[in-house]
């Protein structure tokens, strides 16, 4: 088993190396001049433009040969620095990401976990109650098949534009200064609610369908039929089916937890919610490839960590994997 994890870690390390390299390379291959983009924010005389352009190019290290830029990138990375953001100049990229990630996690962590719990519960019940199945299943299919932006736009239209129950955009009201006051917390909550509900609903539909189908599949497995032929009550058969159906769902959960640091791009953009997904759009619009790089790196690490967690979780919960490993290394 130790050898298995050692090999896994090596794979993850290599993946990380390749991903970082790509992450460094891709924005540099893209067209456009980020410094020009930055300078266009200021109104400058042509003479000072040229001076500023060359000084910024030096400040961002963009004048160096590529291999130097690459090595510098790694060195800075190992010191925990991702450079300076152009979009939010002169804030460092890490600061910009840190602000956004708070919003993203507050939105996606509860949406993912709650939709997982509720979806699995309802899916499991649907698998055994015909009436519920006939109602929950079509409903869930509609929910998962709904593109996020549709549901988001619909909710935004009905609850924000028409009914004015919730604010339509932003992370909090811009008339407030972020403080630890009730008014500010309330503003955070009301702005959080709509994007949360869209994400919850779509996730819920997916988990519910997944669980329902997995249980129905398990109930038709050989071991389930064998239990029935021994006169085991339905309760026991369902218990086994539920436990076994949970394993693939758990993998799905770990994977989606890994991707939540990437934010929910579409939802965040529709609601103008200042999380990571929204930040991606800002970074692209302002050709801020330091920021873009930082975000991607962040996502890469998140996904790799999540995959590693899946590997560990699977070894812990599924005897088939665990024993296969022990036998392989004996």
């Amino acid at each position, binding site marked *: 088993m130790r050898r298995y994890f050692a090999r896994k870690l090596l794979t993850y390390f290599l993946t990380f190396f390749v991903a970082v390299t790509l992450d460094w390379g891709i924005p540099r291959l893209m067209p456009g001049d980020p410094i020009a983009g930055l300078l266009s924010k200021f109104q400058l005389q042509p003479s000072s433009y040229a001076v500023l352009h060359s000084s910024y190019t030096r400040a961002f290290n963009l004048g160096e040969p590529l291999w130097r830029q690459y090595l510098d990138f790694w060195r800075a990375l190992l010191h925990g620095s991702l450079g300076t953001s152009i979009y939010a100049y002169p804030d460092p990229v890490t600061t910009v990401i840190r602000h956004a990630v708070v919003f993203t996690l507050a939105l996606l962590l509860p949406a993912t976990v709650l939709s997982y719990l509720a979806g699995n519960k309802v899916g499991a019940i649907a698998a055994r109650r015909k009436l519920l199945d006939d109602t929950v299943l079509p409903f869930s299919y509609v929910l998962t098949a709904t593109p996020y932006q549709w549901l988001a736009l619909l909710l935004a239209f009905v609850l924000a534009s028409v009914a004015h129950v919730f604010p339509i955009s932003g992370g909090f009201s811009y008339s407030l200064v972020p403080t630890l006051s009730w008014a500010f917390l309330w503003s955070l909550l009301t702005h959080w609610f709509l994007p949360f509900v869209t994400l919850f609903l779509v996730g819920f539909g997916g988990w519910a369908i997944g669980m329902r189908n997995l249980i129905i599949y398990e109930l038709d497995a*050989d*071991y389930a039929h*064998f*239990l029935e032929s021994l*006169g085991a*009550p339905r309760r026991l058969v369902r218990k086994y089916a539920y*436990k076994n159906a949970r394993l693939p769902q758990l993998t799905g959960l770990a994977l989606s937890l890994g991707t939540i640091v990437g934010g929910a791009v579409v939802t965040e953009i529709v609601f103008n919610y200042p999380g990571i997904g929204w930040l991606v759009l800002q970074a692209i619009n302002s050709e801020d490839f330091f920021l873009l790089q930082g975000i991607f790196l962040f996502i890469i690490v998140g996904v790799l960590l999540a995959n590693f967690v899946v590997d560990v979780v699977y070894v812990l919960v599924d005897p088939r994997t665990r024993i296969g490993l022990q036998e392989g290394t004996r």
Partner: protein
Amino acid sequence: MSLDVQNLVVAYRTLRGDVRAVDDVSFSVADGEIMGLAGESGCGKSTLGNSLVRLDRTMRCLGGRALLDGTELPLSDWDAMDDFRFKKVSLVPQYSMSALNPTRRIGKMISEVVRSRKIRYKDVLPELERRLRLVGLPTDVLAKYPIELSGGMKQRVVMVLTTLLDPSLLVADEVTSALDVSTQRAVGGMLVELRDMGIVTSTIVITHDLSVLVQVADSVVVMYAGKLVERAPTATVVDAPRHPYTKLLIASLPEVGVRYAEHVLAGIPGHPPSLLDPPKGCRFADRCPLASAECAVEPPLVELESGHFVACWKAS
């Protein structure tokens, strides 16, 4: 008279209509008898065996009945059948390699099943361990997961579990098919021992491989396309079969001592008919070398001599 099956009809409900996989089949199995059930794949053997223990939602019993020790089995009543399952009638399924829950330790699974039948695990554990040793398994298999066992070991665990409560009837479906030749012999031997020790009263051994039945069975029933075509003591079926189908099955057996690889099985040309819309008259007619005009009418099952039944116009 241990098991008495009378005019049993079992069909699968499908979108295209009923598939009558067991069609008007009657036979009986005496106390202490091991009856073989033979026939090509798709002849309805598993359907017959399953219907006596676990008639699932896709199946319907359209007629006939089965008496066990004089009591009628409520085949179609799932809940009422639960009183009989495990305790009176038991099934070693065709898929017994995958019959154990892969994510439960075997002992834990058995304890949960036993307790769900309102029996204390403590009370049966000594007997369970004794029987595991009897079939050559160490008792520590109970602490293992199914994946840690070989195919033959899983097969034996399933057989020990299904017979734990000394059932009156054991249906063993293709228990030897997935095993290598020496394990096949051991499992066949187990079936005989279970009977000899009085653990199982009557046994039905289902197989498409007649050579297994030569080893274990006292009598043989041959099915073709959902119908019972011949029934006789094993020696009679092997040495003096009367139904053309049985004759061809016997002829396609390899001679004793000849390995399969060296001997291309003759086989029987053609395939069994679809049971969705079976042919009128004798169902074997289109493959039968002796078929003639009279075979357009279905031949009745007649007792040629005591204990030897055949359904063929040309047999008498």
